[in-house]
């Protein structure tokens, strides 16, 4: 049943670029980019219980890694993804090490300050030759290879779709096994987890690294799709947008990342006509309202609803839970 649903989603996703115009295709590409970043945040905050208000910073590091490799070293676009992944894994792991000593609020504070400082670090003149300073770097959009009959937007869409599927399958595999149970155990009962022999320090730093890796891959894809990186695209608002997407999509789930990405990208689009301030106001209101009535987000709500429906149909059969 679940597999069929997933196949249907993938089938629809495959048809999309041929039905929609180039601009819509590009937007859907960005939705997938955001979904990958949100998935990283879900793994860290939802599953491992570590807070981050600074994932925009790791997204920025991924973007810049890809952009610098492409603009200065002529590395092909697809090869920048593993590089961005590795750089962000290392950056996340290193930031996660001191963060180990921090509990909830203070981790949020430390990551917030990282995100706030990021644009000024990127603007720093000492590394201006590499980063392009305030102006940033301009990139070229890749052409479809092997003479495929696709235009640039369509090709980029399929490339991103493939990466997204790989990243989601990897996350699913990571979370459903032994490692995933350890990650969740650290969130729920840190002391008991340690007593059971889980190396909490290592797991927490590694989770931070993996989460940053997801943000980094998303950042690299985003840079390739937008063909431009500049310090001011990575303001604190980006990190807030990730938090909003994660919370509203459903931070305790994998699928929630997709709902969250749609929300974060399309709500500003729909509301921008009202006022420049409207998207932010809507984000803020939704955040608070969701915390009041639906802290499990859209994905969590759907799961509860389907469990409820199943109970109605099958009588009192027990509800099965799992990492979905």
């Amino acid at each position, binding site marked *: 049943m679940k597999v069929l649903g997933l196949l249907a989603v993938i089938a629809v996703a495959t048809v999309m670029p041929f039905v929609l115009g180039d601009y819509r295709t590009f937007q859907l590409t960005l939705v997938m980019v955001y979904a990958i970043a949100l998935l990283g945040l879900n793994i860290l*905050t939802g599953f491992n219980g570590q*807070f981050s*208000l600074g994932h925009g910073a790791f997204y920025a590091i991924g973007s810049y890694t890809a952009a610098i490799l492409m603009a200065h070293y002529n590395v092909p676009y697809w090869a920048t993804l593993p590089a961005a992944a590795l750089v962000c894994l290392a950056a996340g792991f290193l930031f996660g090490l*001191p963060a180990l*000593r*921090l*509990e*909830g*609020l*203070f981790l*949020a*504070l*430390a990551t*917030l*300050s*990282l995100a*706030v*400082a990021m644009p*000024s*670090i990127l*603007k*720093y*003149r000492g590394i201006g030759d590499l980063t392009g300073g305030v102006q940033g770097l301009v990139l070229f959009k890749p052409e479809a290879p092997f003479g495929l009959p696709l235009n640039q937007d369509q090709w980029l869409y399929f490339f991103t779709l493939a990466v997204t599927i790989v990243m989601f399958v990897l996350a699913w595999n990571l979370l459903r096994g032994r490692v995933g149970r350890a990650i969740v155990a650290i969130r729920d009962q840190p*002391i008991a987890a340690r007593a059971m022999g889980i190396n909490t320090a290592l797991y927490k730093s590694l989770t931070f690294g993996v989460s940053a890796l997801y943000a980094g891959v998303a950042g690299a894809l985003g840079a390739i799709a937008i063909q431009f990186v500049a310090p001011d695209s990575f303001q*604190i608002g980006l990190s*807030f947008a990730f*938090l*909003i997407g994660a*919370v509203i999509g459903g*931070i305790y789930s994998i699928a929630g990342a997709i709902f969250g990405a749609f929300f974060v990208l399309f709500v500003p689009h729909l509301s921008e006509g009202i*006022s*420049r*301030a*409207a*998207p*932010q*106001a809507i*984000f*803020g*209101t*939704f*955040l*608070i309202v969701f*915390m*009041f009535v639906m*802290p499990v987000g859209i994905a969590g709500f759907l799961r509860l609803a389907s469990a409820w429906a199943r109970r109605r149909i099958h009588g009192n059969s027990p509800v099965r839970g799992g990492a979905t």
Partner: protein
Amino acid sequence: MSVEAFFLQVLSGLATGGIYASLALAVVMIYKATHQVNFAQGEMAMFSTYIAWQLIQWGIPYWGAFLLTIAVSFVGGVVIERTVIRPFEAREAVLAVVTVFIGLFLILNSMAGWTWEYTLKSFPSPFPKQAYLGGYLSGHQLGLFGVVLATLALVYVFFRFTPLGLAMRAAAESPESSRLVGIRVSWMLALGWGLAAALGAVAGMMVAPLVFLEPNMMGFVLIYAFAGALLGGIDNPWGAVIGGFAMGVLENIMGVYVVGTELKLTIALVIIVGVLVVRPSGIFGRRVVTRV
């Protein structure tokens, strides 16, 4: 650079440090009362400053607008606590609380932009324009220093010598016992929010003449205030004040002599991470030991 110039840099750092100190004090007050760090503190201060600006535009003299803004902010802080924060009082979930703070941050920021546009506005200073000490300290910086110190003294007197101040400290220290002796703990928290909002309003009105009034003006101030609060010890009001002043001086000295003005925000990042890693309780803070 001469010793004299260095000394003057320290002085002007102390003046800006006063702003960080008062916002840091607001952060610490809420932390002491609720063990939450209010990420929306800066935006609350910014919104208060807009109210003051509006009052002045309507022709109310500066000090009248100043006091009125403090009163309005106090009520606003209490209302926010009662409506938005209170439902999460009982829940320990950090995720919920921080998310609500971010939501509050976004709402206040966008409401200010919606109501008063995003254009820069100049905010008047009540102090003489004349420069002192060889041009390093403006009249406003000196006045700001005085206002911040006076505010801190008032806060100290309030907590130290009034029954209400004592009740608030008791409610923060041990809510259970306070409830037993008849203190309405929940309302004490709301009052704490009101006071923090009022303190933030003072900080906002003092910082606005230096940086221009706009919805994002408190962003960097808040980060410095956080750094100051952590440096001094997040549960120690005096530590927070000293930490705030120290951040002002550090910002100036590092900005002029070491890293340049571009990387100023990075100083705050380094201090925040550094303090949290090396000595999470800050210089004057108490180490908290929890029983498992």
